[in-house]
């Protein structure tokens, strides 16, 4: 598709986001089962539920444009999820795994924050107020999810213990 107007760019951004959320729906259960800390597992499971809602909101956004929901492969998210999979494959210690998973998940959240922030701004420019609200609600939830991950990282999930064990 040639993107020769802001309308088309906006539609393309929604298609990209829909694919990103769908990829995340598949990745989060794997991340939850790889996580060792109960808090981290809970955080991934809670975000999985939210992610389902995010998909629904994007579908509503398409409807509001009079279009049927469509997606294009979001290569950005593909790469970010691959990084998470690498951590799962290569971390041999549970606390290191958790620290790596938090890092991977925060990269995903930042991607989404940037993407929703931009799409929201374009919705505003184009006067799509209903879509603006949908995107803003999701953006707020992504921001909260990122904050939660930062708190978990700072709580440190017994990372010092992991190092001592590795040195022993």
């Amino acid at each position, binding site marked *: 598709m040639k993107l020769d107007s802001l309308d088309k760019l906006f539609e393309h951004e929604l298609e990209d986001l829909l694919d990103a959320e769908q990829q995340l729906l598949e990745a989060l259960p794997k991340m939850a089962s790889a996580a060792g800390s109960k808090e981290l597992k809970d955080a991934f499971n809670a975000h999985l539920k939210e992610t389902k809602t995010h998909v629904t909101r994007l579908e509503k956004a398409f409807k509001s444009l009079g279009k049927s929901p469509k997606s294009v492969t979001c*290569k950005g998210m593909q*790469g970010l999820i691959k990084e998470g999979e690498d951590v799962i494959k290569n971390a041999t210690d549970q606390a290191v795994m958790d620290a790596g998973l938090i890092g991977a998940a925060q990269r995903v959240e*930042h991607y989404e924050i*940037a993407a929703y922030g931009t799409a929201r701004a374009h919705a505003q420019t184009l006067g799509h107020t209903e879509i603006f609200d949908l995107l803003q609600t999701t953006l707020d939830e992504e921001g909260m999810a*990122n904050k939660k991950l930062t708190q978990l990282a700072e709580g440190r999930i017994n990372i010092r213990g992991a190092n001592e064990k590795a040195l022993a």
Partner: protein
Amino acid sequence: MAEKIESIDDLFVHDLRDIHSAEEQLIAALRKMAAAADAPELSEAFTRHLEQTTDHRQRVEQALAELDASVGDEVCEGVQGLIAEAEESMSAIQSGPVLDAALIDAARKVEHYEITAYRSALSRAHELGHDAVASLLETNLQEEELTDFRLQKLAEGMMPYSGPGSDPRDDGSEVMLGRPATADSDLR
């Protein structure tokens, strides 16, 4: 990434190698983005960030040397995907304001990636007591944050919209320590 990550130290070295690959990929991408940008101020912003990115790569190399670790052959798949998106835009959109908007979006996604990666590496450097490495990472982090802010301002000047947050502290992420206090005045 083939090596096993057995400790937080391993994870730290792994993350630094990942960032090194990200910076290297970005050097190649920024050249293309500078050439594709229509607005002269956007093209200049990319060229300026290209120069900084060359410094960033060098600082990461210093950091790895400080840890007696090689640069390795890690490929940062996250940034690879983000750059692929920018390339898609460059091939799907004709030169002009729409492409400029898409390039700014793509560049800001990369900046957000790097800001997250540097923040997390920086807190690990502090935790592991690598002060010299921490100070190298902090310099890079501040420049990335400032770049994101400059791109934001450019976007606001070019089109009647603003990207994630109208202020660098309002990007939905954590307020962090060591944010450049000069960010606002620098731009006014």
